[in-house]
């Protein structure tokens, strides 16, 4: 999911706070909900000009650490979209923080923090849910791909060679080569076809 889509979707949500960060994690834009910081979010709303990545890294709170890791992963191009869901205890609201790459804007990312859960004590306790392991902030392998790499993977699955993919996407052959190599590496495959087979089996490419 691209950053714009995430942002547009979240703007429609009540109590969503949105921040845009540049390539080093500095906040460059926020929406009113983020700026207002009603205190409900439990984590500080880092203001424009401050570094969200560094600020969250200084907190011992696991959610802050997870968000920092997610931002770093998105900025490094390792993932395009990341979600962290958190509830500190059964009586607290649940927060969903999404970090997404800003499509077409270089290394920037958008961070959206919103309340998604109720306060009802009967609701199942849900601790921080992070698609990460060993400190490495990853979703499943398919989520590591950039939007362009996903397009390339779709065309690989159709059996196209690099020249045909370059013609189809109107990009340079050498650029396609780079994307194909990245796809193979990110999917943990040893070969072009193993990457396609893995994507096909996991439903990351159309089965039509």
């Amino acid at each position, binding site marked *: 999911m691209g950053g714009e889509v995430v942002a547009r979707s979240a703007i429609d949500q009540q109590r969503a706070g949105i921040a845009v960060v540049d390539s080093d994690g500095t906040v460059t834009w926020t929406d009113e909900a983020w700026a207002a910081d009603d205190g409900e979010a439990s984590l500080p709303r880092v203001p424009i000009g401050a570094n969200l990545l560094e600020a969250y890294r200084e907190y011992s709170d696991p959610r802050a650490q997870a968000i920092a890791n997610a931002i770093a992963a998105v900025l490094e191009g390792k993932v395009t979209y990341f979600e962290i869901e958190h509830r500190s205890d059964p009586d607290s609201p649940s927060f969903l923080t999404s970090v997404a790459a800003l499509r077409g804007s270089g290394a920037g990312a958008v961070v959206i923090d919103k309340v998604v859960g109720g306060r009802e004590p009967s609701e199942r306790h849900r601790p921080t849910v992070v698609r990460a392991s060993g400190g490495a902030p990853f979703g499943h392998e398919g989520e590591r791909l950039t939007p362009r790499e996903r397009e390339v993977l779709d065309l690989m699955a159709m*059996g196209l060679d*690099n020249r045909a993919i370059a013609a189809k996407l109107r990009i340079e052959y050498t650029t396609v080569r780079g994307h194909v190599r990245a796809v193979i590496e990110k999917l943990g495959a040893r070969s072009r076809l193993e990457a396609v*087979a893995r994507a096909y089996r996991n439903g990351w490419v159309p089965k039509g």
Partner: protein
Amino acid sequence: MSIGRDERAAPVYPVPSHVCLLHHGEAEMRPAVLEFMREAVDRPNEALLCFGEPGVGERLLRDLEAHMGHEFTADRRAGRIMVGEAHSDVDQQLENFIAPLEELRARGFALVRFVGVVAWDVRHFPPPEDFLWFESKMNEVIAELPVVGLCPYDLARIPARGIAYGALETHPFVLCDGVLRENPQFIPPDRYVRERLLRLPWLQGEGLS
């Protein structure tokens, strides 16, 4: 059905065509391959590309020189006889194959013959599944070109899965014991990825190897 063959004549290859040669050991391969190559050398309006693992193409040409009793120095210098090398990266291998074909085509040769010596799961060669994709892709690459390709599959060296999925499913024609036949097992390249490659036994399950 057999095509254009009697007991004395060499096979008559359709143009374009992508043919697998099934043979058992080098002794069976040499006569068929050297005859195929010799025809290109003998005809000035034809060109020849020898493709395979590093060193294989050169060795084939030396064998042919010995067979014909003269060197091809002038033809090689003129680029009528070329050598292409396989590569462990299938995309690079495809480029190594297409680039000389395009060059020979641009220079207007009436026919380009290539010999692509097959290897399986060895260093300097793509992984098997990528090699199968390459073999299937050959059919698209030569579809509009005056090209005839002969791919020797050594039954003594290539595993059964290589013969079944490669020789028999990626070549529209099979040459065996001197007889050229249309191949009913052939799967067109636009169906090969989904019908075969994604179903390869070693690509199934979580433990891909």
